[in-house]
């Protein structure tokens, strides 16, 4: 087949890129080779627009065993235990087919984690949908949720945390990010780097079908009216086979058979083989006749580009094939030696005893395009919203509006569809600031949380980037965990647009600053560009997934009030920042202005001080103050509890709306035994931590003196109605 400009374009390659391919090959590629370049050089695999910026992220620390660059990040939690985790997007496939898109997203991220030798112990997700009124939202939402549950429940890994958000910026482009967390022994971690010549390259798992051919280039293209045509690329997940694959791999990993192992994710056999060879500075030769195929007459092109799920590539030590095959036979999985490592530094593809394609590995990997795309700084909107000019609203009504809104209403209708308890190590399920998973057979645990704040990032990407790292950090602290490291999924619009690229660069700068200051390194992540349709880009949505350590597990700490008549303290200063707040958005549909400022010094100090109090067992319950401000946080502490609170009117003469709904950062609310107050104040003062005594818990009622009084039962109802009527 003659390669025309049109074919090149169809492969998502720019003509300059095609010229470059010819130069690297010193000839024209054939169709198969073009397909391989297109898979490796697209945004999803090459990170061509993001690499320049990603390099700036802090990725090191005492706790880091492996940072970005492998299938997942690895951190040390002591006693030879390691935690392996990563987040990944599956936005485009989920928009086309929500159930399968979300399901295969979960399947993919799980493979990234168990590939490295970890038994997955928790799943999380961050899902973003368009406006609830949008005609597509409901079915997308239901499809995605059941897809996530369908996969995770079947494979038997608890889905323990996540976030669900609605915003019309996602009307035509939803976000589905899945995170997996696994546990491994520190001295038994597996990497993807190939080593040694003439080693067997083994294909294991499901058979290869025609599914998802060009999925990776699809994930790197904007949607347009023609996206319908791209539908045959939908992949169907098979969690049952993945369960078998996981058990078989973990069984094989018990001895020393494996030199290198890599899941087949985006761009399937192509990217997995190239990645292994590239990291090991080797060549790889594949005999495509040997690849187990599901359909008849599959071509080398289809075999190399298929994105069939539940497959892995393994490089074995000499002589280990027989024993390894036995294991995969036991689990009824295909196990075929399909090639070997070579010293040619080339990817060589044979079919019917003919060489059908041969490409230098470097041309695909290290010589892939790298763009330092143009970007511009965000023009900052300095508006001042005059509350007095707005229609007067009662505090009570504003609160009810927030608590009953789709974004803030209780999400148990989602989480009840996920098995959160399988594996019997879930100490705290979703519904709290962070979930807690015990390390099997030990008395320590990890805390996990995923967070995003697109509105803040849109308004001011630099601060938004910082803020979201801090919020994630706070969520781990409130359950008593020491935050260790993060993974991040960067969901952005079209990087060829300099405003969007600016959002990316600035968000990343913010993330970097916060991570550096908090010693909270990035160990893995994923970038998803081209989220949007017809030039309408989504809000910049970096999603942060954090992992923290609880060294000695005792009763889990959460935000529900525990007792009558205990003292409630607010840690951190309240300035009353209302711009970009939930209060203005939900009640007045106002989106203007700047996000709240982030003061990293206060963040760090307030968080670390709270951890000290928690370690001394002085805290009954704790919660961070985020979206919706102080009053929303306090009502959340009452909703899940039989106790409410009597809130004192603020002493200083402040505007009540600013005081109660302001979204100032670095704040926590804690409930303490009233007779410990002195002791706690002393510690707070010693640590230069600002605090206020804001109220006392009481039975049944949520109350602000002389302002409002609602029963906690009613709050619960208000918070649980939305989905029932949707």
């Amino acid at each position, binding site marked *: 087949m003659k390669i025309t400009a049109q074919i090149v374009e169809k492969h998502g390659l720019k003509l300059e890129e095609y010229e470059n391919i010819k130069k690297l090959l010193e000839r024209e590629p054939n169709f198969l080779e073009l397909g391989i370049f297109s898979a490796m050089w697209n945004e999803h695999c090459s990170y061509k627009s993001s690499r320049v910026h990603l390099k700036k992220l802090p990725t090191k620390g005492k706790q880091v065993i492996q940072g970005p660059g492998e299938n997942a990040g690895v951190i040390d939690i002591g006693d030879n235990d390691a935690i392996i985790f990563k987040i990944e997007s599956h936005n485009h496939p989920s928009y086309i087919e929500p159930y399968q898109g979300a399901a295969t997203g979960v399947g993919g991220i799980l493979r990234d984690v168990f590939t490295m030798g970890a038994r997955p112990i928790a799943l999380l997700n961050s899902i973003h949908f368009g406006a609830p009124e949008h005609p597509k939202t409901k079915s997308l939402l239901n499809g995605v949720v059941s897809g996530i*549950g369908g996969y995770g429940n*079947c494979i*038997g890994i608890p889905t323990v945390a996540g976030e669900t958000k609605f915003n019309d910026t996602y009307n035509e482009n939803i976000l589905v990010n899945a995170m997996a967390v696994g546990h491994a022994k520190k001295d038994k971690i597996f990497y993807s780097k190939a080593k040694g010549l003439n080693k067997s390259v083994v294909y294991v798992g499901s058979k290869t079908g025609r599914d998802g051919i060009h999925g990776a280039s699809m994930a790197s293209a904007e949607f347009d009216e023609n996206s319908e045509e791209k539908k045959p690329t939908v992949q169907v997940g098979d969690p049952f086979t993945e*369960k078998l694959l996981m058990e078989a791999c973990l069984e094989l990993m018990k001895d020393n058979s494996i030199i290198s192992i890599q899941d087949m994710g985006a761009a399937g056999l192509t990217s997995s083989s190239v990645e292994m060879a590239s990291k090991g500075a080797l060549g790889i030769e594949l005999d495509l006749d040997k690849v187990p195929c599901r359909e008849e007459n599959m071509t080398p092109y289809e075999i190399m580009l298929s994105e069939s799920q539940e497959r892995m590539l393994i490089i074995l030590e000499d002589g280990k094939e027989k024993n390894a095959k036995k294991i995969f036979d*036991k689990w009824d999985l295909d196990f075929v030696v399909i090639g070997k490592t070579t010293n040619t530094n080339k990817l060589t593809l044979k079919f019917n005893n003919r060489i059908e394609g041969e490409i230098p590995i470097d041309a695909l990997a290290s010589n892939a395009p790298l763009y330092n795309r143009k970007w511009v700084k965000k023009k900052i909107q300095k508006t001042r919203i005059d509350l007095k000019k707005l229609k007067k609203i009662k505090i009570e009504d504003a609160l009810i509006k927030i608590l009953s809104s789709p974004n803030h209403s209780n999400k148990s209708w989602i989480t009840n*569809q*996920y098995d959160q308890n399988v594996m019997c190590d879930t100490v705290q399920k979703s519904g709290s600031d962070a979930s807690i998973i015990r390390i099997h057979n030990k008395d320590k645990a990890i805390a996990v949380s995923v967070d995003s704040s697109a509105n803040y990032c849109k308004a001011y990407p630099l601060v938004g980037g910082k803020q979201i790292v801090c919020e994630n950090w706070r969520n781990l602290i409130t359950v008593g965990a020491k935050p260790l490291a993060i993974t991040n999924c960067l969901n952005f619009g079209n990087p060829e647009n300099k405003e969007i690229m600016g959002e990316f660069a600035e968000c990343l700068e913010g993330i970097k600053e916060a991570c550096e200051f908090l010693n909270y390194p990035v160990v893995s992540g994923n970038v998803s560009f081209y989220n949007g349709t017809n030039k309408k880009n989504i809000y910049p949505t970096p999603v942060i997934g954090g992992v923290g350590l609880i060294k000695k597990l005792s009763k*889990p700490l959460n935000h529900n009030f525990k007792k009558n008549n205990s003292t409630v303290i607010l840690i951190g200063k309240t300035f009353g920042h209302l711009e970009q707040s939930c209060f203005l958005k939900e009640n007045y549909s106002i989106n203007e202005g700047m996000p709240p400022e982030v003061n990293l010094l206060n963040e760090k100090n307030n968080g670390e001080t709270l951890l000290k109090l928690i370690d001394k067992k002085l805290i009954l319950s704790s919660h961070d103050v985020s979206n919706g401000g102080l009053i929303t946080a306090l009502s959340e502490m009452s909703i899940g509890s039989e106790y409410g609170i009597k809130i004192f009117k603020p002493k200083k003469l402040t505007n009540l709306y600013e005081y109660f709904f302001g979204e100032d950062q670095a704040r926590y609310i804690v409930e303490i035994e009233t007779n410990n107050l002195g002791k706690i104040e002393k510690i707070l003062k010693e640590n230069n931590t600002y605090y206020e005594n804001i109220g006392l818990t009481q039975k049944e009622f949520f109350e602000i003196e002389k302002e409002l009084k609602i029963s906690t039962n009613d709050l619960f109802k208000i918070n649980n109605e939305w989905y029932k009527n949707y």
Partner: protein
Amino acid sequence: MRSSVIVFPGSNCDRDIAIALEKMQFKNQMVWHKETKLPKSDLVVLPGGFSYGDYLRSGAIAGKSLIIDEVVKAANSGCLILGICNGFQILTETGLLKGTLLRNKNLKFINKDVHIKVMNNNTKFSNKYKNNQLLKINIAHNEGNYFTDPKHLDELNKEGLIAFKYCDEKGNINNGTNPNGSLENIAGILNLKKNILGMMPHPERMIDDIISNKDGINLFSSLLN
């Protein structure tokens, strides 16, 4: 007591139940579904999970595996058999228990802690509980909606073969306290000889205060009794 846990491809509560049994001092063995011999056991457990992905009908394909013939033999000779969740579904598919488990009435997977009432404590599986005792136990299933014909239902009631019923924290048994649409709020049943128990709730998830509660422990200690 010697126990055997059968492991099917796709079982995923096998480790959890094994831990519970060992904690309760059972001498436990894991038995792969392709085995053709069952080790000497006083108790055989069919664990929860998604054997064969729940494809076709939940429990159907596991019901055809090699080891099942041995389990049926053991059951017929009086060995105690416990099927939890997917294990319950397998028991109905093999005919060891009558009736069937249909999709939950809301067609959604349900995971939550529910209350169940002990309906008969005069069995090998429940003698450490009191009659009408309320337990708070985790459920996690797609197909827990128990259905059977009127004649069998009658037998279940007359012979005291209903082991547990879903209820609320006060013990009320009605439509509102029925999570999945199960006939008469049935959460678990026995066979006529009362040596086989199938139940949807997961007692193995309720043996540890830090994780949940200890309401499941007495099921295991009843067996040891």
